[in-house]
């Protein structure tokens, strides 16, 4: 979740910066100082990095959705509400955007963003990315939760129904000389279960 938030906030930051630059404008390095290009390059690099993370998650989510998406609704794993995810992502992304813009302005000697700028540009850049990231997370959490549910269900199954026990049963009768374990310690020591030992 933390990685997705950070990645999404950087993509949103890059989107905002491109929106503010205007359509068709070439990349211009801000300022004229020796290291004045650092801010623009950092925005670009972090934004592209964040986009790469989201793209990778998109591939994983799409692949997993192809597996679970065609299941009947009753068998489809439960998903987290999209609104909750989008709300959490957007709130944190907006906070990251505020801090990042303030730090960049302070580093560049510019005026910090006004509340109006923050609301308008923050929404324009961060909101679409938050919605996209929420969709991704929803798909991913559905798959992860389904996998965890399967593991939990498998762990709770009695050993008697598992095929491995049948093999043990055969093996036990084939090697009767093996020492039987005391009851209640089946899982801690090697050897056949007590109930399978000949009387």
């Amino acid at each position, binding site marked *: 979740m933390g990685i997705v938030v950070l990645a999404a906030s950087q993509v949103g930051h890059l989107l905002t910066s491109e929106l503010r630059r205007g*359509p068709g404008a070439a990349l211009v390095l801000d300022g004229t100082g020796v290291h004045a290009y650092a801010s623009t390059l950092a925005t670009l690099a972090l934004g592209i990095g964040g986009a790469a993370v989201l793209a990778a998650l998109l591939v994983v989510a799409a692949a997993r959705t192809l597996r679970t998406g065609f299941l009947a609704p009753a068998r489809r794993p439960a998903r987290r509400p999209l609104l909750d995810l989008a*709300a959490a992502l*957007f709130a944190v992304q907006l906070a990251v955007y505020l801090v990042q813009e303030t730090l960049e302005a302070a580093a560049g000697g510019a005026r910090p963003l006004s*509340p109006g*700028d923050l*609301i*308008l540009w923050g*929404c*324009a850049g961060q*909101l679409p990315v938050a919605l996209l990231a929420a969709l991704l997370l929803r798909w991913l959490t559905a798959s992860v939760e389904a996998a965890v549910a399967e593991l939990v269900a498998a762990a709770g199954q009695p050993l008697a129904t598992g095929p491995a026990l049948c093999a043990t049963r055969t093996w036990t009768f084939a090697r009767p000389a093996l020492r039987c374990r005391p009851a209640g310690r089946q899982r801690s020591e090697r050897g056949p279960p007590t109930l399978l030992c000949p009387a």
Partner: protein
Amino acid sequence: MNLYLHAFGPRYDLPISLALYLYAAAGVVVVSFVMVAIFASDKTGERAVHYPRLAAPFLLAVGRSPVFRAITGGIGVLVLLAVVVTGLLGVQNALQNPASYLTWIYFWAGLVILSGLVGNLWTLFNPWTAIYDLATLGRRPGPRFRLPEGTGVWPAAVLYLLFVLFELASGVASQPAVVATLAILYSVITLTGMFLFGRDEWPQHGEAFTVLFSVIGRFGPVETERDDRGRLTGVWLRPWGTGLLQRQRAGWDWVVFVILMLASLAFDGILATPAWQSFDVTMGHWVQGLGTLAEPVTRTLGMVLLLAAFLLIFVAFVRLMLYFGGRRGEELTVVTAFALTLVPIALVYNAAHNYSYLTYNAQSLIPLLADPLGRGWHLLPTAAYQPSLALNAAATVWYMQIILIVLGHVIAVYLAHLRAGEQFRTAQKALLSQYPMLVLMVLYTMTSLWILAQPTTKGG
């Protein structure tokens, strides 16, 4: 709207920096939170939202009187007719046409604030229920169709959003003929809905203003009760704001409606800030291919973005409240319950934002009464009336705005505290749940004041 937009005259030079005002206002909200935590009731469950009310038999008699209903309904119909006639036949200049004043100042700003102060006045002045009653001779025939299950107030929310976009984004809201035409169109939609789905059923689900005033009216001190046939059965007086603690059906339709009230008012304020000018110019480059539609599209985008942002941030904070309050599940019930505690903020923001319209611009209707259609008539001796600026000095406006905004947020903090007592198991959990709400209130107070300060003060 171009009616002397924010006509404050010279901008006001604040005696201290704007930031100090913002911090002070936020401080008052924090202190009020502490006071509420210490002195307010720590009851939980149903008892937490119980409030005293006093029967008002005099108001019940007045409310039941058919003569009173005929007079108020008649006034509503007359105003609607005045908007249509003067809008279509009068001077096509918003400043010289009564339709603009009646719609945007007396109805949209004045009646909303008055309903918050007094109670739901729309039930009395609603012109469409009056026309319906007249057309059916008060017989109230049954509905021909039933609204689908789960309709909620979604139709009303959609119509409200369209109305807001017309006001703030279309760019034609100051054209009287357009206002009059849309008033006719809306009347047709509403009356058709009432004939198809029922006199009370359609307005409660699909008439934006009925739903809006039912929400705003909950803040007022007059509480009414009606039977299944819509007849008034009881009238009580209650403390201001407590009506918002009444039980409300949980639903995203209600949450979106309340958030839309807040977001539209904030967007109206943002339009007057330098930040919007910058946003508008920059985004204009992206949509310049749309020609004359570029401005409405940019504004619509801004409004939708703000609505989505307000909704998401509110949901995020309610999630935090649930976490701090140790409650699991039933998120929608909690979201709906706390959404209504935001209504005082919407109400005071409306009053603060429209203060100059109500105290100054509203007076400009008086000389127009002498010649409403601009034909050189002298129907009343009011043509020479000059609006007074007595209540509209920039300093007065600024301090009124501060008082209103802080007051609204303090009331919201108090109501949220009581609501938390109802929603969470123990008083301690309820108090813990309110820390995120406090942060939200502080942020909202500072942002609201910053927005309001922009056109008023030099410091803005």
